Every structure is written in C-alpha cells, then in structure tokens.
C-alpha cells in the first residue's frame, strides 16, 4: 500500500501540472479564436469550438480525478477501495480484452477507409495511411518489447 500511496502522490503532481497545461492551451485557443474573428482565416469556428470543448472536458476529468485521489489519500478505506479498483485482476483482464479487440476493429475499419479514400481524395488517403502505419508500427514495437520483457 505504501508504494500505491507514493504512486498516487506522483500521479497527483503530474495531474496538477496537466491542469495548468490544459488551462494554458484553452487560453491560447480562446486567444486564437479572438484574433481570427472577422478575418478570412482558414481556422474554422467549429474546429476551435471542438478544441475548446475537448480541452475543457479534459480539464474537468483531471480535476475530478485529483479530487478523488486527494480524498483517497486522506481516508484509508477509500484508499483501499481505490487500490482494489485499480488492481482487480478481472478489471485488468476486461481492459486488456477491450483494448486488444478495439484495436483490431480500428485497424480493420481504418484499412477499409484508407482504401476507399484513395478513390476520393489524396489528402485524406495519405492522412489515413499515415495513421494506419503509425498504429501498425506502434503495435509491432510494443509486441516486440513485451515479447522480450516476459
């Protein structure tokens, strides 16, 4: 439990840093959107809105987690529950299966979308192909890493 507490403290520090970082990003997006108002900028209002919304959502999630971890550090019962929640072997298996199956689905859909986009738009094709290659390389690298680790 001591190691878990220490890990939680490290996470809290990292999340506090992230809260400030995300706040700066939200401010910069707001500043950019203010600067582009009334200009013939390529930056779409909708895109700026999505970006702002995403980062504000992220900020709220981080703040919620910080509050949860801080409360757990004060209360031993909550800390134990959090420890069980994070280390439960069934939860870990569910997460592992969800991620691996999800990845297969993403790879299949992405490959089909890449092929179809090739007939419609070159920019979309190269973007999707790059994403597909990046995911493929990452999976390959991680597979090699874990085969050496275990």
């Amino acid at each position, binding site marked *: 439990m001591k190691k878990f507490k220490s890990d939680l403290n490290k996470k809290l520090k990292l999340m506090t840093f992230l809260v400030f970082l995300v706040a700066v990003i939200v401010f910069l997006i707001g500043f950019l959107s203010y600067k582009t108002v009334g200009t013939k900028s390529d930056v779409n209002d909708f895109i700026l809105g999505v970006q702002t919304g995403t980062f504000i959502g992220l900020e709220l999630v981080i703040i919620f987690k910080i509050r949860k971890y801080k409360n757990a550090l004060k209360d031993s019962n909550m800390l134990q529950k959090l*420890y*069980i929640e994070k280390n*439960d*072997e*069934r939860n870990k*298996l569910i997460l592992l299966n969800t991620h691996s199956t999800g990845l297969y689905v993403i790879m299949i859909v992405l490959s089909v979308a890449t092929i179809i986009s090739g007939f419609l738009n070159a920019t979309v094709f190269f973007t999707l192909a790059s994403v597909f290659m990046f995911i493929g390389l990452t999976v390959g690298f991680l597979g090699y890493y874990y085969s050496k680790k275990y």
Partner: protein
Amino acid sequence: MKSKIRKLRKQHRISQEELALSVGVTRQTITSLECEKYTASLVLAYKIANFFNLTIEEVFDFSEVEGDN
C-alpha cells in the same frame, strides 16, 4: 471453473463484499467466480483458499483441466 466459493461463503456467513475486500478484489470478481464466468489467477486462488484455511484443490475443481491433459 467450478468452485466451492459460494458454499464456503455461506458456511462462514460472509458476504461477497467482505470476501472481496479480504482478498483484494472487487465484489464483481467474486460474483463472476461464483457464476463460473471467470477463472481466478493462481495468486487469487491461493488468497481465497487461504482465507478459508483450505488448499486450492479443496476450493477449486480442477477436474476439467485434468481432462484436457
């Protein structure tokens, strides 16, 4: 995998939540074990058996596994 967890729990009059907390898993994991939806790891099987002061073989039924060999 079949197990005697539910039977043992009732004999000892303890809830799923109490057993789950004692062996360091969630209540849902105990439910899944009792419903034979999930197979416990060696460590968890040991913890559960140890909780009831029994051996792993006395809690879990390995006849299906033995049949595979």
